[in-house]
């Protein structure tokens, strides 16, 4: 009974959040003359979109590093697989010639989007249905491809000890990046060039016949998909399997002695984590509107790892919170550090291009060294308990 109530509350909470996002991004359309921050071009929406994508990847990494105790650094590699799977499947047939012009066309003639449009039509509701359906299938396939590669990679590397596992997964990500940049595979991967022309988040904005935007959904879509995926990960973590993962993290020898098959459960966690990283990669491709191997470097993995650490290793809500803070700081709030600033005639010292990242990495080091629990430790955010605390405080004051 109590449990049902709790899941109902979570459902309501997520629905409210999603409705709020839709409202926020359409505010400028309803009420003209709002400040710049509510306009679709404002950094607010860039941050929201990117953070929605990254939070899924961070949570998927936390599933592996925080809940199963497997220190893997392959996240960027699995995102790469997801991004390319999505991109290759979703470039419309008629665009392929143009995208792959350096290689004289694409060896892979099938386009999921065009196939779906063939069934539902291209305009109106049929077009929308075709796009939504093909996009969902492509993202699922992106996850599956990623998960499948994780399975193959997992067979040799999951037997390794913590730090060797880290370096081996990092190595696999680098190998994947090299393969996807190989010119010989250019007719599929477009070599070192980017693949573009596929539907992005803004393709989900609803327009009228004259091309004007009726309803913006470009921030809502990544929120919706990420929220659903994170919800599934949370369900997994709170299930019998999630408990088994935590047992492996706390003490492998005891876990094995209590009947938990180490290899099978580590593999499960690795494949599921990579599945969601793959979906995250597909979303990332939609966010940046292209797929290019050189974006998915180990620096990207480090960034996600640091987000997980800031949020608290072993806390899903911590990872999500930390992602939004991290992305907002790096893309928006600390931007001013990058531009030269004059107060009167005096130039403020140090401020110039690149200073933001220096400050940022110092902050991260301080967190790593002095607040190693991160924002949430291994606790979950509990709005109910938080509200109760506030209420109690208020009552005391009165």
């Amino acid at each position, binding site marked *: 009974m109590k449990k049902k109530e709790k899941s109902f509350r979570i459902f309501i909470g997520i629905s409210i959040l999603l409705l709020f996002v839709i409202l926020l991004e359409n505010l400028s359309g309803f009420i003209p003359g709002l400040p710049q921050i509510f306009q679709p071009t404002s950094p607010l929406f860039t941050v929201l979109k990117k953070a929605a994508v990254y939070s899924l990847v961070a949570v998927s990494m936390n599933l592996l590093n925080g809940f199963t105790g497997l220190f893997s650094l392959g996240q960027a590699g699995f995102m790469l697989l997801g991004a390319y799977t999505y991109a290759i499947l979703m470039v419309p047939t008629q665009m392929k010639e143009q995208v792959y012009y350096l290689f004289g066309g694409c060896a892979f003639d099938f386009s999921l989007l065009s196939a779906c449009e063939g069934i539902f039509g291209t305009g109106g509701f049929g077009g929308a249905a075709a796009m939504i359906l093909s996009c969902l299938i492509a993202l699922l396939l992106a996850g599956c491809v990623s998960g499948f590669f994780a399975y193959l990679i997992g067979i*040799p590397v999951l037997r390794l000890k913590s*730090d060797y596992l880290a*370096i081996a997964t990092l190595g696999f990500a*680098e190998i994947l990046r*090299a393969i996807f940049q*190989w010119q010989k595979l250019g007719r599929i991967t477009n070599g070192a060039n980017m693949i573009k022309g596929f539907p992005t988040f803004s393709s989900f904005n609803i327009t009228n016949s004259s091309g004007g935007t009726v309803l913006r959904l470009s921030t809502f879509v990544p929120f919706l998909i990420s929220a659903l995926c994170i919800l599934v990960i949370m369900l997994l973590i709170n299930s019998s399997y999630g408990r088994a993962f935590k047992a492996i993290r706390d003490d492998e020898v005891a876990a094995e002695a209590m009947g938990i098959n180490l290899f099978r459960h580590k593999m499960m966690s690795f494949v599921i984590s990579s599945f969601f990283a793959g979906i995250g990669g597909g979303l990332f491709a939609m966010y940046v509107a292209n797929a290019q191997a050189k974006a998915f470097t180990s620096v990207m993995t480090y960034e996600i790892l640091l987000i997980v650490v800031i949020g608290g290793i072993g806390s899903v809500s911590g990872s999500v919170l930390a992602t939004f803070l991290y992305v907002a700081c790096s893309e928006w709030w600390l931007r001013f550090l990058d531009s030269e600033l004059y107060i009167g005639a005096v130039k403020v010292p140090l401020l110039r291009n*690149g200073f933001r990242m220096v400050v940022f*990495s110092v902050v991260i*080091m301080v967190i790593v060294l002095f607040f190693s629990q991160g924002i949430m430790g291994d606790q979950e955010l509990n709005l109910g308990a938080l509200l109760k605390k506030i209420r109690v405080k208020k009552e005391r004051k009165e």
Partner: protein
Amino acid sequence: MEYVISVLLSGISVGGQYALIAIGYTLVYGILRLINFAHGDVFMVAGLMGIYFTATMPYSVSIPLVIIITVVLGFVIERAAYKPLRNAPRMSVMISAIGVSYLLQNTATYITGGQPMTYPVIPFLAGTVNVAGTHTKWVVIITPFLVLALVVALNQLINHTKIGMAMRAVSKDFETSRLMGIKINSVISATFIIGSGLAAVGSVLFFTNYPAITPTAGAMPGLKAFVAAVFGGIGSIPGAVIGAFLIGICETIIKGLPSSWDVSVFSDAFTFALLIVILVFKPQGLFGEAATDKV
């Protein structure tokens, strides 16, 4: 034939430069069981300092100064970022190392403005010489000999001095050594000092042969050097050196293959493939000792 010789020569020289970095990894791992992800970036910082110092000072001053400051940097990193986490889980220390690497790269981007910087032409090292019909830089010839000399010296240090003995003891058993009155922190500092010093020497040799330094220029040689250390058996200095030479040679061979095959993108990937093969089939490396865990 001449082509083969020139590929081999440059392979040996790249390998020697990796060896100098790999020793730093293998020493630190042997003692702290930590993959010091920041080591490659220390190497990059040494390269950048080489550029800035030689611009204002004569080589006889600037190059020793580069080595000294790099050593200080290595020492400070250990004291500031790793020492406070001595009793923390190993994952935390590794994360701290990644944080340091991130900080060094971002600081380098800030200082250089993100532009690739050209390494100065150091007169003697960059001069050309004719070996078996191929023109090559002096640095290519000097590197292997210098590496061998340094390794021999290091070997003497580790096997015949008090601090060397302490280092061997700590790498065998951290806790017991502490109980026996070995000053763990000074041993660890010594390790970082030696590692950073060798990385600084390596940077002078490596970047003389390289067109430019970017803030991420240390990451890849660093990872490769780590692979070399694993290949040779982590903790073993001769192992790291042999591993580094092998990786250097393989890499230049791959880069030197006909361009129609277009496999040069795999010169980095190859190293990692080698790593995975080694980890799966002989995890203790060529010269490492197998360890058993006590339950």
